[in-house]
């Protein structure tokens, strides 16, 4: 995915600089943590790099950003990582009860065998879907004790004991009057995660939900909020942590929204798709299963100047078996429902259009 791969790039697997299974060694001295969504990790080339800020632009019509947040937080808790969560609700701790639980490997096998059953019939125009399959299966079999990235069952809440096992800081952004207090909370949280030379011992996750939304205490302090994000970024850069901030761009002025986007290392946006859009349903396959769209605007570029060019930037968010979150590239549907007749139909189409042009 990276634009250039030199012919003698170092074999990373031979030097396991990172023993912790919850971390992954990336290129250019970066270390990845998982986003909690296996597909998103794959798209971003490994996950979210430590010391980066991830921003998710919300859609006012649908709470899809919550899916990303939940998986991100759950994954951290499963890996025993301290968590800092801020939200504009009165009782942020209540949100922890909605975090999804990882699917145990037993369930996973069932999932795999299902996909094997599907293997029998493949349709050529969807072949891209099956590219990463081998690799994925391999990863599933390999990681028995602790996996880098779990699949999460959105219907099952996370076990209570995981919530009490490690440090979780919750802050409500609604009632805190100014940002200095909030900043202090963040810096005390990050103080324990200072980066030092002898490897990565402990990794923290910061999740800030709907920052600068109208119900936030400081939605009218645009410059102060920017300054806060900037100082958060500089704190994160020197510690072993990742911050994910979701914000509604529509409530910010365009100029400020751009400033926010520039501050992000990784920039994503989520979009709802309208329920009964006949036009779109005709264009895309699997439209009924889609719950939204994820757009990748920017991929973190730490210690490098080379931009990451993705094969696709828009992915559909789907719920597999109503429980686990998958991201798929958009597949254009054939002109007609059954592929057999679509040839005939397209042929007749071009024929008729020719005829039409003659008529005119």
């Amino acid at each position: 995915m990276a634009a250039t791969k030199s012919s003698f790039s170092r074999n990373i697997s031979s030097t396991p600089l990172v023993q912790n299974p919850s971390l992954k060694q990336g290129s250019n001295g970066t270390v990845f943590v998982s986003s909690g969504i296996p597909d998103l990790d794959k798209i971003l080339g490994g996950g979210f790099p430590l010391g980066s800020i991830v921003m998710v632009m919300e859609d006012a019509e649908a709470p899809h950003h919550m899916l990303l947040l939940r998986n991100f937080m759950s994954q951290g808790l499963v890996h025993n990582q301290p968590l800092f969560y801020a939200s504009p609700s009165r009782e942020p701790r209540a949100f922890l009860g909605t975090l999804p639980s990882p699917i145990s490997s037993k369930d996973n096998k069932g999932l795999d065998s299902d996909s094997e059953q599907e293997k029998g019939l493949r349709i050529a125009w969807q072949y891209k879907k099956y590219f990463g399959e081998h690799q994925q299966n391999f990863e599933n079999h390999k990681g028995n004790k602790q996996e880098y990235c779990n699949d999460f069952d959105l219907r099952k809440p996370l076990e209570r004991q995981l919530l009490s096992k490690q440090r979780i800081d919750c802050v409500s952004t609604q009632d805190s009057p100014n940002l200095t207090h909030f900043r202090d909370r963040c810096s005390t949280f990050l103080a324990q995660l200072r980066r030092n030379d002898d490897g990565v011992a402990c990794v923290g996750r910061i999740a800030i939900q709907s920052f600068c939304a109208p119900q936030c205490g400081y939605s009218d302090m645009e410059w102060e909020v920017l300054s806060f994000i900037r100082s958060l970024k500089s704190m994160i850069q020197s510690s072993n942590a990742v911050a994910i901030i979701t914000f509604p761009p529509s409530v910010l002025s365009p100029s400020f929204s751009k400033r926010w986007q520039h501050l992000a290392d990784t920039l994503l946006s989520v979009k709802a798709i309208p329920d009964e859009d006949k036009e779109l349903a005709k264009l895309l396959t699997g439209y009924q299963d889609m719950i939204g769209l994820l757009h990748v605007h920017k991929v973190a570029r730490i210690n490098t100047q080379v931009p990451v060019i993705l094969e696709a930037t828009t992915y559909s968010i789907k719920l597999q078996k109503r429980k686990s979150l998958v991201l798929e590239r958009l597949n254009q549907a054939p002109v007609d429902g059954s592929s057999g007749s679509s040839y005939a139909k397209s042929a007749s189409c071009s024929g008729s259009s020719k005829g039409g042009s003659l008529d005119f």
Partner: protein
Amino acid sequence: MDRSSNLNLLDEAFGFENQARVSPRVLLIEDCVETSGAFVLHHLIKRALSLDGSGVLLFVALAQPFSHYERILRKLMYNIGGNSKSVEQNVIHSYSMVYRVGGFTFSYPLASELLMVLDVHWSGCNLVTQRDNNRLFFLDMLKLVCPDGDEKHNIEGGLVELYGKIQKTVEVSALSEDSRNCITIMIDDISLMEVAANGSSNHVLDFLHYCYTLTSELGGSLVTLNHEDIYSSTLGPTPILHMEYIADIIIKAEPLATGLATDVHGQLTVVNKGIIVEHGSPRNRIRNFHFKVKENGIEYFYPGSQT
């Protein structure tokens, strides 16, 4: 791309081929969310530090920590000649391997010999070495927040303090070495300085004017990076217009209309205000070309000319 003289389209557009020494100028790099223009800055860091061993660079970093630039510059430096590939990985991590450079394979003794020869070039842009040699002054301003108190004049105070630091450094280096030193001040980036100044762009502009005066007195140059798309929605005189006015060269990094591609990472528009054409009248010269960013350098080419 003219590889023999180590000039590329970007250098040509800057007018670097005309004079060995860089005349006093102000460069402004503009970019947007989709296409980062930071690579131009890295290119200019490399240039400023490898300029006959006499250039002094003062870098005001508001966006990234030192390690980020250091790492990038280390990789950029391995671009000796045109087609060498990035050998960084080998140099740092494995001395026991067989070395392959530019398609040739040779063994460790030969490679280490080669490394020693090449080291002369490489140390030229190792930022740590340069910092120790007092050729690079790196001001880490990641945590710069000017209005710590509540009073208005604190914003000014913070920037005045920063300027004081810059002035002192510049004067010290101008005194200590011979006068052929050419000083470059780089600021990455202005939009973050505005955030640090709590949105008071007037103070930031004042600051820039001070820096501009300082560099033009000493015959140095001022390089700044800003994001164009931030101001695109605001009407009236925006800070970027002021900056464009004082700039001699404006470099704009934009994505292609069709989006990013693996072979073309975007396009650069370089407006050089100071080039004199044959008839003796100064004229703006605009160049537009595509680029592809790599670890060890950037490829520039005119649309359609890439083989």
